């Protein structure tokens, strides 16, 4: 099993363009870098005569995710989701959409940066928001253990797996 089988998403960092096959759209963007890109998508979709619901905020907060859940609940097939922002935020929105029955094929993603990571602790189950790349170590906000950020990503919980970095060292 090489890296081609990794669960780490490889989403485009350049504008993938608007998916024109949909009938109605939701455009969600997070952070300042994503705002102009999302606005561009919105303009293009309006020009194509499509219905567009737009949302912009600093991060994929609980409120943002709840808002997206409502959109998915009312959506009919033909609906598309376009996401732009830092990887940890788009991953979270992406997870919410999948939970609602949206397919990967119906989601367009643009990642503006991948500095921040949501790390799920295998020991206490807490999720820590950390500026840590793959293979780096970060402290768990739940139990304080030093977590190794592993290249395993849950598309359901939108977190990277973290486990105790020095588990096999004698204390």
């Amino acid at each position: 099993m090489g890296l081609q089988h990794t669960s780490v998403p490889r989403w485009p960092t350049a504008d993938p363009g608007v998916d024109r096959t949909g009938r109605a759209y939701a455009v969600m963007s997070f952070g300042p870098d994503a705002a102009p890109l999302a606005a561009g998508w919105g303009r293009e979709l309006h020009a194509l005569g499509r219905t567009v619901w737009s949302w912009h905020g600093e991060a994929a907060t609980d409120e943002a995710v709840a808002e997206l859940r409502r959109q998915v609940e009312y959506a009919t097939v033909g609906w598309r989701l376009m996401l732009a922002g830092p990887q940890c935020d788009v991953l979270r929105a992406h997870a919410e959409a999948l939970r609602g029955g949206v397919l990967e094929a119906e989601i367009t993603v643009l990642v503006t940066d991948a500095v921040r990571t949501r790390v799920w602790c295998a020991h206490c189950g807490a999720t820590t928001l950390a500026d840590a790349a793959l293979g780096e170590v970060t402290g768990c906000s739940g139990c304080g253990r030093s977590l190794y950020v592993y290249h395993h990503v849950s598309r359901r919980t939108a977190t990277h797996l973290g486990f105790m970095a020095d588990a096999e060292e004698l204390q």
Partner: protein
Amino acid sequence: MTLKLVVRRSTEIAEGIREIVMTRPDDGPLPAHPPGSHVVVDCGPQRNAYSLTNCGIDPGAYTVAVLRRPTADGGSGGSEQMHRFQPGDRVALSPPRSAFPPVSTARRHLLIAGGIGITPLLSHARNAVRWGADVRLLYVHRPGAGAYADELSELLGERAQRVTEKSEFSVLLRQALVSQPMGTHLYVCGPAALMDRVLQEAAAAGWPPQRLHLERFTPAELDPGQPFTASLGRSRRQVSVPAGTSLLEALENAGVEVPNMCRQGVCGECRVPVLAGRPLHRDEFLSEDERVAGDSVMCCVSRSETETLEVDL
């Protein structure tokens, strides 16, 4: 493996449509199968694929419904033989094969049937009702040829819409395609023209191909195609495949045996791994993702886009 069954009953259930019930000679249990499965039946000179109407759990009998369809040249198609079967007759068929199952994660199942294409969707409907899944059916047929109409209305009530007018079907189809909740999967079976139309209108309404599932019971008309060379990776041989000859036939002529059954791109038996080159997929078996991957080919109908197709044989 071939199942040797006995015809127990053959009943005309609608104009030109017979329902045939088959069991084991000792009435013992038969292999279970996912909803939407089909069997390939030996009917005289031909082997035809027929959908099972059972939902597939612990089947004691296999039931198919066959529309009598004389061949264009006036000869006897497989359906004629099927209509001639009498109770007590022996019949040889393949075990059930699943190429049209319901998607387990679907929020709703939208079933669209044209004419005798109702058979696999009856299986889907029974399964959905059994498990309490959200299901809708749109069924269009010729007047008097509505097989299973009563049973479906009892099974689904208002969730089933049945029409005999094409114009009425068009209106209902258009409404259905723009009003399904997110997470719905669509399943269509019927004449080629109907299926093509449903797929086309669904795409125009924004349905991605991953949500669309079809079962063709009449193989698509295939053109003879371009000649190409099959390069056999293991035996290091080159087999040329002329236009009008299938890859499977060319391999057989060269003495290479490939397991096969339906020879019309439906059953999935003759799947061959591809090592290099780009297959030209013309089958109904592979999924969208498998087509894109291009690492296998159904050699009975599919050909090659590249001049050479290297296969793992």
